[in-house]
Every structure is written in C-alpha cells, then in structure tokens.
C-alpha cells in the first residue's frame, strides 16, 4: 500500500514540476519578494515590515493559486486523458490510494516550491536586517502556517476535482478560500443570530475551512511571536479537516462511474 501511494505521489510531483506555468509563478513570486526591497524605499520606516508582508503574502497567494490550478486537474485530467482507467483497472491500485497519492504528490510539489520561495525571502530579510536573529523564528512559523494553508486548499481543490469540471472546481476552490478567510466573522455573525438561524449559521461557520487562523503574516511582521499552542492546534485542525475533505473526496470518487 505504501509503495503504491509513494509511486502515485512521486508521479504527481514529477508531472507537476514539468508544468511551465509553475515556474512562471515561482519566478513571479521571487520577483515580488525582490521588489518589496524597492517598495520599502518609497515608503517611510517600514522597510522590513513591507518586505515581510509582501514576501509572505506572495508565497501564500502564489502557492494557493498553484495548488488550485494543479489540484483541480488532478482527477479530471486523468479522466479526460483516459489514463485513469489504465491505473485503476490494469494495476492493483484502489481508488482511495489514487486520491491520497495525488494529494500527497501535490503537497510535496507545493512544499518544494515554498522552500524555494522561502530561500529568496530569507535572503531578502538577511539583506535588510543585516543577518537573522532569534526573533526571526516566527517567520518560519508563518511559512509553516502557509504550508498548512496549501494542505487545506489542495485537499479542497482535489475534492471539487472529483465531481466537477476544472473551471467550476477553480471557482469553488477560490470561493471557499475567500469564505474561509471570513471564518471568524461568520462565527461572530452566528452568535448574533437567534433560534434555528443561529444553529444553521454556526454549523456553516464551522463547516468552512478556517483560513483566518492560519494567517499570522501581520503578527510576525511586527516581531510578535506565535504561541506554541496555536501552532499545535492549527496543525491538529488542518490534519483533521484535511482528513475529512479527503474522506469526502474518496467517498465521491468511489461512487463515480468511470466507465
């Protein structure tokens, strides 16, 4: 089983890194990190803050765009190219192994991308701050949270990919990302409602992915450390939510008639 998962994940990774769009996006993100050095010059007293905000936002947003654009095609492309039948019929691969393998492959791709972009980002931080200090550890935490965002959005893109066309999958994925950034507000609205509306809104608020808690960019830009408890809870939350989304994906995929 592990061998089959690894093989699918590795192939997904290899296929993704061949995509030229991916390299364009990484190059663009790296350029944005570099340009933040210039933006700092035309503003006042915020060189380092603007570098961290712009750099981490670029890493986060471009990773999410990559996750969505590659994630939405993971299943539908295989169906379109009819390669899925070969994999599932000719080889002893179960459907859940296929979905999980694809997910792991894309997460691996995104992690490598994030690491590459982070190298550029830390080089810029070192240039501006003349070195790295102990306080810069919070930047690593912010990048870790960005990786958790990738994990969530990849699972969601994959879920939509199992039952929808690539265009609609991308719309759904972007929409749920946007709604997820309002997760905390939604819970606030739910508390203001009464009766059945309150229950429904609370349910909806907990159903959407909580992207708000994963964004600590502003916090680390001001050298404020991230609580270790938040790191632990966010990790557990992303693991649980991703497992739920993958379960839903496998469930839908198992029921699909691929013939």
């Amino acid at each position, binding site marked *: 089983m592990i061998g089959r998962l690894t093989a699918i994940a590795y192939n997904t990774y290899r296929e993704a890194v061949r995509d030229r769009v991916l390299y364009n996006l990484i190059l663009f993100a790296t350029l944005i990190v570099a340009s933040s050095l210039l*933006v700092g010059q*035309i*503003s*006042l*007293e*915020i060189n380092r*803050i*603007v570098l*961290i*905000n*712009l750099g981490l*936002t670029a890493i*986060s*947003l471009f990773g999410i765009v990559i996750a969505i654009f590659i994630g939405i095609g993971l299943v539908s492309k295989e169906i379109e190219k009819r390669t899925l039948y070969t994999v599932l019929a000719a080889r002893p691969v179960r459907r859940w192994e296929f979905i999980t393998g694809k997910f792991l492959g894309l997460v691996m791709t995104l992690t490598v991308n994030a690491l590459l972009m982070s190298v550029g980002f830390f080089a810029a931080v070192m240039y501006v701050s003349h070195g790295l200090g102990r306080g810069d550890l919070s930047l690593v935490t912010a990048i870790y949270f960005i990786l958790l965002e990738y994990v969530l959005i990849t699972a969601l893109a994959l879920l939509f990919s199992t039952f929808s066309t690539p265009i609609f999958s991308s719309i759904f994925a972007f929409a749920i*990302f*946007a709604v997820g*950034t*309002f997760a905390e*507000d939604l819970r606030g609205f739910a508390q203001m409602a009464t009766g059945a509306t309150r229950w429904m809104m609370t349910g909806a608020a907990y159903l959407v992915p909580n*992207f*708000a808690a994963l*964004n600590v*960019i*502003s916090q680390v*830009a*001001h050298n*404020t450390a991230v609580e270790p408890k938040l790191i632990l809870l966010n990790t557990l939350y992303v693991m649980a939510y991703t497992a739920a989304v993958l379960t839903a994906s496998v469930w839908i995929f198992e029921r699909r008639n691929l013939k």
Partner: protein
Amino acid sequence: MTRDLRIQTSYALLLAALLATSAMLVRQVDRVRGDEPLQEVLYIPSPTVVKRMSLGYSGLLADIYWTRVVQYFGSKHKAKATQYLLLEPLLNVTTTLDPKLLPAYQFGSVFLSQKPPEGAGSPQAAARLVEKGIQENPQAWRLYYDLGYIYWLELRDPAKAADAFERGSKITGAQPWMKVMAAALAAHAGETETAIYMWKNILNSTEDASLKANAINRLRCLRVDSDVKALQDRVDQFTSQNGRLPSGWPELISTGWLRRVPADPKNIPYQLIGGRVQVAQPDLFPFITRGLPPGRDAGDMPGEKGFKVVKKPTP
C-alpha cells in the same frame, strides 16, 4: 550571419524601435494633457470594508496605504497645499488594517498636527490618531511621548500633556525623562502639588545623579512658589484687616501673622517690598514662577528658556 540570426536580430530591433516610439508618444500625450488635478477621492472610505476585502492579507494592504499616505503628504507638502483632505481618512484606513504599524501613528500625527503648509493643521485629529495607537499598543511608550508633545506644543494643554507623559513613564522600557517631562509640565500647568508629588517620585526612584540634581532643583523652586503664595496670602490678609501695607517682616511677626523671618530653601530671607513678597536672588531658582522682581516674568528665567522646546526632540 546566418539567416535565422538575421531574422532574430530584425525582430529585436523592430521591437526596440516600436517601444521607444510608444514611450516618446506617451511623453507627447502628457504634454498635451497637462497636469491632471490630484484627485481628492477615497474610493473605499470605510476602513472595515477595506479590511474585509483584504482576505486576511491586511498587513500588506496597510503597507500600501501607508505608502499612499507618505506619497499624498509629500505631494501636497511640495505643492504647499493648505488642505490635506484625505490625510486623516487614509491614516484611519492604514491603522485599522494594521493597528500595530507604529510609524503610521508616529509620523502620521506629525503630518496631521503641523500647521499648513507644513501639515494638515489638525492637532485634534493627530491626538485622536495617537490615542487610537495607544489603545491598540498600550506598551508603546513612544506613543505617549508623541501624544504629550501634541498636547503641549500644538494644543497648548500642559495638563493633558503631563498626563500623557506620566502614563507613558509607567510603561516598561520608557525613558526616565518621561517622568521629568510629566513633572515639568504639571508645574507649568500651575498644578504645583502634583508637580511636587511627581518630582519627589523621580527623586526617590532614579539612580541617575543628574536626574536627582534636577529633581532637587525643581523641588526647591516648587517650594519657593508655594512659600511665596502662602506668604503673599498672609500679607494680603494683613492689608485688608488693617487698611494699610505691613512695614516689613518684623511687624508681621510682632502681630502674630508669622513666627520668624521667612527664608527660601537656600536660607536667604524673602523680601517684602511694597506689600509684595519677592525672592532675594531669583537666579538661584531658575524654574520659579512666583516672587520674581517686577518687570521680570517666568519666561525670562534661564530654566524656563530651556523649558520652551520649539521643535519636538528625537527620543
């Protein structure tokens, strides 16, 4: 040169020529249109809406807005504008997007408070901005310092200025002179008892020799102010009861108004000239506001000259 290379070179040259032509045309278009008036419009005036639209990336948006504030202020300042209509709303959006962006409060308050054309001439707005900053960053002592200066220099309210310095001086890491400023301003506001209390606190809490000496000097001056007021009250009461001025200290002692000849903290007797209590050597007490010889007011004192800071010093 191969055919392929010739073709590639031709394309490159054509592209460069066309781009250069378009750049020249843009310059001509700019000349024809002249300077477009600067638009005093904030497309999304609500800071909350802007924050919601940022999808969680509010830090970056705050940086962009702060850069816009700097550019807006710079362009208006350069044009010697008398109105800075967008300055306060832009700063409000910036600080709502990133409430921890301290430069926006510190520099923004300077932009707002200075008189036109140096700034927007709105010290009340500057004080509101810094109060907002203090609410969001209660541990940033420099904001209390900024607020103190706005109240002191722009709003001419030494009592509120003293309060701001006093609040800031209690923050961990605040510079010791924040306490000094608070005490000095309290004295300036005429609140002598508060000033005596604060200077005593400074004297007891600091290890710095110069601060201690300054505190002792200030306390002596405050005691002189207090003595002169009390003595002048008694002289005035004597005058109203007897219908004439006292001839000197001996008369006040013999009639029971005083027990002995009053002396200042340097043990030099106070003077009673024409019913007016005076300090014999006022130069020994540079910060006194009472008991000065006629024709000499507090502003002439060397200490008071040192007290009048025109420009806000860098902390």
